């Protein structure tokens, strides 16, 4: 078995270009792209929040208090515009971001305890929500002051005032700590990265080990060597298993490094959670990857030995990515939590277990059950693969 293993590893490691493009680049690029995107999105959002909003106000004399409110607000700057200017054009060419139109008798309406309308013009297609929310916050501040003033006329005490404004206050006491909250998020994403790298890294070598041997005409010669078929299968399986597992573990390292350096730039809570993850947690994630890599290695090798050519093998393996996506997506669906039922669903249970490990809420009985059931599945798939290596109709499909 080890003769086959060493030969296949040597052959694989010599194919540097493919190694770099199919294994190393995804491992190091995927976390950088993922977190780079999060970082850019977060920075853009922060910039949009801090950006000065230039506004024009029409009819300021109808509500001097409102005009003064925006004039005082930091991050807002008034731009004097003539009444004849087309507001849409002014927003379109960037002279202003928003325009307010205060109708006549605005203050009169307010003073008579009636609701008054403040017209807001903005481009909702251009990061509109942030602008709308910032304007809304200023208006809400004014509303709150008016509300309090109106209620003060009823001579209410502060507790009574609080009652009138919000009779029932919702006091939130989450049982989840910071690690559980943030861990659910990163833990949900982790299987995507790890399972895909584990599968993708083993795919190319798998094609080489079965269909590649058929296409190169080496399989027949190899089958005639005095080596038990089980040893041959195990040698090839071990190559795919170790490549898949190594790639996934490298991905864990790569993600760890990226998180260590970039988490603080994205979110302080995220950085705090990352710092609480210890070697023990990583070892548990690594243990979960063992049966996963074995499952993928067995399926890929069986497919590869069945295929007549590289092309056929590639075509057969592509749907496998979809088959892997579904159980992982399932683990992200709200309401799907790790219980004994989900712990018995292959791959979904591994994705759920990884989430629980990162959250720090793993139930070790379920962990052992998942490890055991996944190992049994991997063993059955390996036996199926061994069976195919013994079938003449599979080996000599030509």
């Amino acid at each position: 078995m080890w003769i086959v293993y060493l030969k296949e590893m040597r052959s694989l490691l010599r194919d540097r270009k493919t190694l770099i493009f199919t294994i190393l680049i995804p491992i190091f690029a995927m976390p950088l792209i993922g977190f780079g995107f999060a970082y850019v999105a977060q920075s853009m959002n922060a910039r949009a929040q801090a950006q000065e909003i230039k506004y024009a106000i029409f009819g300021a004399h109808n509500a001097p208090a409102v005009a003064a409110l925006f004039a005082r607000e930091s991050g807002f700057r008034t731009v004097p515009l003539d009444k004849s200017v087309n507001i849409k054009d002014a927003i379109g060419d960037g002279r202003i971001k928003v325009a307010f139109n205060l109708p006549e008798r605005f203050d009169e309406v307010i003073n008579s305890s009636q609701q008054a309308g403040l017209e807001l013009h903005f481009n909702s297609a251009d990061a509109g929500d942030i602008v709308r929310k910032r304007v809304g916050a200023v208006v809400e501040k004014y509303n709150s002051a008016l509300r309090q003033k109106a209620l003060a006329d009823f001579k209410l005490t502060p507790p009574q005032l609080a009652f009138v404004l919000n009779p029932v206050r919702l006091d939130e006491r989450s049982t989840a700590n910071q690690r559980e909250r943030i861990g659910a998020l990163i833990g949900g994403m982790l299987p995507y990265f790890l399972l895909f790298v584990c599968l993708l890294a083993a795919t190319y070598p798998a094609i080489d080990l079965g269909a590649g041997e058929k296409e190169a005409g080496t399989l027949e010669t190899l089958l005639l060597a005095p080596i038990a078929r089980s040893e041959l299968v195990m040698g090839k399986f071990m190559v795919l298993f170790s490549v898949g597992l190594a790639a996934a573990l490298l991905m864990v390292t790569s993600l760890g490094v990226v998180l260590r350096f970039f988490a603080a730039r994205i979110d302080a809570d995220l950085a705090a959670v990352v710092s609480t993850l210890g070697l023990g947690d990583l070892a548990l994630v690594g243990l979960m990857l063992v049966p996963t890599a074995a499952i993928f290695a067995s399926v890929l090798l069986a497919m590869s030995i069945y295929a007549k050519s590289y092309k056929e093998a590639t075509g057969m393996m592509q749907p496998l990515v979809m088959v892997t996506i579904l159980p992982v997506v399932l683990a992200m669906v709200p309401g799907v939590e790790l219980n004994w039922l989900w712990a018995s669903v292959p791959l979904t249970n591994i994705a759920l277990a990884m989430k629980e490990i990162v959250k720090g809420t793993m139930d070790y009985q379920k962990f052992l059950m998942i490890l055991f059931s996944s190992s049994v599945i991997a063993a059955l798939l390996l036996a199926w693969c061994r069976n195919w290596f013994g079938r003449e109709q599979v080996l000599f499909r030509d």
Partner: protein
Amino acid sequence: MIEVKNLSKRFPQANKPDKSARRDVRESEGWFNAVRNVSFHCAPGEVLGLLGPNGAGKTTTLRLLATALTPDSGTASINGIDIIDQPMLARRQIGFLSGTTGLYGRLTARENVEYFGRLHGMAAPQLKRRCDELFDQLQIHDFSHKRTDELSTGMKQKCSIARAVVHEPRVIILDEPTTGLDVMAAKVLLDFMASSKRAGIPLIFSTHHLHEVEKLCDRVCVINGGASVFDGTTAAFRQQGGGDIFDAFVDVINRTNQSNERSAA
């Protein structure tokens, strides 16, 4: 000594036979009888040529003999070792070479040969000695460190021969070894076959090149429609064609085709 007696092999038919097409005598009830009661033998120092048109069953016969496939009935033995009862032991006796060179492109010539030596259980010192010996004989030393995907066809052929005989086999089986080779690469193989014959090793090879048969073979076995339709000496075979081996081949194939068609009808 290679002895083959009434070897048969059938495969399930993937597609139903076309009823409008001419019926093949090998088809029966969802099965395709690729090899039907084939018998021949090859003594030490003899070369046996396995002849037949494309699809006759030559490759399947050689795969059965080399233990890549398991026969449904019949027996075969290599130096007294039954290939069905002791396939592993039989494999240690066989050096097998097919039309494709069967080399791993990303490994060097030496690594390819050593890999198969190790698979045959050879110890490191024994393997090194044998590799050096073969590389001397076949003049491989100059390119033994090069990856085989960088070698010329002739170099690959030499390397392939070394790979096939690294474990010092007692019999040699070659499946259309010269198909697609240029003259110089084919010569490498024919020289190797001649030297094996001189060394007293029984050698069986399938071919479409009748001049190779005339040059090397002591015996001939013709397979047509999955059955052996001639088994005898090369001289006796030539005699059937009035002294011309080409005419002898065409005659035996035509005769058996007519007989098969009558049986199928």
